[in-house]
């Protein structure tokens, strides 16, 4: 759906071709496109305008480097400026011990979940975390935090009878200290930034517990409203950091730029999934490419490095080189890819592919292929040529697929083997033809 900024800028940038120097005139159309792209990514209207103006001042008068096109140069300037803006300030938390953290935000932004996730992260960093349930309004919010605290083995305090949030906070502080905990996280109720009564309430809590960190938890998909929200919370509570949640969706995250620009408060953490470990330190370069729709290439590379076993990969490369690649190897390769996450999330990180939606088929295909290979004996995996009709029938039954599916997989596997032999033999041209033919047949399963 979303075109990458680079795609979008295509025609505007073409007009810049052959330009020796960037001027206000030849930049105008390009910058208009940049502004629209930012607006479409939910960056606030005013923030977009200021951003474009800044980029313009930086661009105008620049000599175009010989090695790149003017377009590339402009995109680079935009990207760098975005990274700089998003990355201002430190993601580090206060060094105070005990470390007191107040979590605030709108309803449904993910405060309770983020509180538990941050608790878990701090535990990893050597703290003894404690969470305090200060949301007395949402039904069962206290239960939710208690369950998560138990699950992650964090200290926990709640007072189900009290309606006095300040008193609850103070009591929690005492309980945490008595329990010897040195990181205390206060989960608060969701509130609108314009709800004076509730803002006063959280201000009183703030005054009483004197937090070292005040983190605003905000949905990464927030719209133009993000500016008002961040501004009001910052004025009321002097925020020290932002936490962006639900970034495992496909929101472009323009709200982050708005909130960062308006408050100057650093983005410290991002929530990236349903599990409590899906919580990371913020990296501005990744979010910049996301806002611009340039794909999260760095993240992809890092993810691949983390999850793919280096030795396994080398072994595979060797096998590929020798064209000695059987179904067993294919299975382990499939599993490597799976470890990196869903196909959709991987595709989403690739440049120009951020809008591509895989239908569930690709993922299903992959699962089916895996099931088929797993239904084979070791001998069959190593020597697929022994697979006769009887064996194929058994495999199909075992994997819960039709025999044609088994046949198709084997046929495609044979083609792949053939290709590898050609690679080895250096018949590159022949291979290209072969690949074209394969494309017509729908390609390799799950690829």
């Amino acid at each position, binding site marked *: 759906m979303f075109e990458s900024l680079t795609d979008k800028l295509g025609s505007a940038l073409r007009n810049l071709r052959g330009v020796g120097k960037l001027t206000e005139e030849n930049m105008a159309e390009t910058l208009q496109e940049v502004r629209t792209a930012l607006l*479409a990514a939910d960056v606030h*209207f005013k923030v977009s305008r200021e951003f474009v103006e800044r980029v313009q001042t930086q661009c105008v008068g620049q000599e175009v480097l010989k090695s790149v096109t003017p377009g590339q140069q402009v995109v680079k300037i935009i990207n760098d400026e975005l990274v700089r803006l998003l990355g201002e300030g430190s993601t580090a938390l206060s060094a105070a011990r005990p470390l007191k953290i107040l979590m605030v935000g709108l309803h449904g932004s993910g405060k309770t979940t983020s509180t538990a996730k941050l608790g878990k992260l701090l535990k990893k960093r050597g703290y003894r975390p404690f969470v305090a349930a200060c949301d007395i309004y949402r039904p069962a919010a206290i239960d939710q935090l208690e369950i998560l605290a138990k699950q992650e083995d964090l200290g926990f305090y709640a007072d189900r009878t009290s309606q006095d949030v300040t008193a609850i906070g103070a009591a929690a502080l005492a309980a945490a200290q008595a329990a010897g905990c040195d990181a205390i996280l206060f989960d608060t109720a969701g509130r*609108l930034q314009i709800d004076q009564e509730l803002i006063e309430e959280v201000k009183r809590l703030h005054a009483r517990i004197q937090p070292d960190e005040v983190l605003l938890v905000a949905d990464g998909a927030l719209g133009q409203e993000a500016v008002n929200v961040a501004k009001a919370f910052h004025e009321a509570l002097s925020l020290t950091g932002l936490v962006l949640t639900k970034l*495992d969706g496909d929101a472009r995250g323009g709200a982050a730029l708005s909130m960062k620009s308006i408050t100057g408060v650093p983005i410290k953490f991002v929530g990236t999934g349903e599990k409590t470990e899906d919580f990371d330190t913020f990296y501005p370069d990744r979010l910049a490419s996301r806002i611009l729709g340039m794909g999260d290439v760095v993240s992809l590379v890092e993810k691949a490095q983390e999850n793919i076993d280096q030795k396994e990969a080398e072994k595979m490369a060797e096998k590929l080189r020798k064209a000695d690649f059987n179904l067993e190897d294919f299975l382990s390769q499939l599993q490597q890819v799976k470890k990196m996450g*869903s196909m959709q999330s991987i595709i989403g990180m690739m440049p120009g592919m951020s809008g591509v939606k895989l239908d569930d088929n690709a993922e299903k295909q992959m699962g089916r292929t895996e099931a088929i290979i797993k239904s084979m004996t070791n001998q069959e995996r190593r020597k697929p040529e022994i697979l006769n009709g009887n064996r194929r029938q058994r495999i199909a039954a075992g994997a819960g697929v039709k025999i044609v599916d088994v046949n198709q997989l084997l046929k495609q596997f044979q083609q792949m083997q053939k290709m590898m032999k050609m690679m080895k033999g250096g018949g590159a041209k022949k291979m290209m033809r072969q690949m074209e033919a394969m494309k017509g047949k729908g390609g390799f399963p799950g690829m």
Partner: protein
Amino acid sequence: MFGLFKKFKDGFAKTVSAISDKTRGLFSGRKIDASSLETLEEALYTADFGVETTEEVLAEIKAAYKKDKELRGQQAAAIGAEVLKRVLAGAEGKLEKSPGANPTVIAMIGVNGSGKTTTSAKLGWRLKQDGKTIILAACDTFRAAAVEQLKTWGQRLDLEVIASHTGGDAAAVAFDAWQAAKARGRDYLIVDTAGRLHTKSNLMEELAKIRRVLQKNDPTAPQHRWLVVDGSLGSNSIEQAKAFHQSFGLTGLVVTKLDGTSRGGALVGIYRQLKIPIYFLGLGEKAEDLQPFSIDSYVKAVFGLDE
């Protein structure tokens, strides 16, 4: 009707009530000029109407201005309202019992934190006020304490809730709740589901399972498949709606959290793309703050036109 409009205005009105306030004086009797057009552009963008609708409204006002340099702010507002009404034509959803379906099933789906559980409870209360009988099914068995949340609402508003426990099978709860609603002769069954990001195919698959299991009871269930969208979100809510529509076939929208300063303009974008009717808006924390969507009231509140 006036009461409803007032609710809309109050809901929207806590600080900057309408676009007109942002463009202070623009929609008055004053004449339009280039700078007021720019202010208008800003107001439309900051209401999350999106690039397409904003450009359409601006284009019509600019065209009118070209023809008539004496164009007044009020006239411009009226033109904007007309464009918005045209874009939203047919967007009002009216909830009715599906003929032959006992109970009529409404499934609430959406991303995490959009307000499904709260909306389910409020809708139950509203239907009860209208003299209908209902049962709530607590099918969010994933989020810690979501079941307890719905149960607490049930106690507060005196609504019947069928639930199992966190970690249980959501589809099984839906099945049992349908059976219970049938046996007790209830008009509606409201199914609250777990929040899921639309980009997670395995979680989308779970939704399909709830549907399949409900269909064992009644092949037409769930008759209503409503997406609950947070009104303060931006353009991504359109992506959300598209993805849920594709895998679940949405029949309606509920837009929540419009009691802040956000204008909920994204609902216009969603309707534009998918033509799914909007049934209710969430305009506050109380049970009665879930209000039927009215194009007229919405458009008037947005442009600050009085009734």
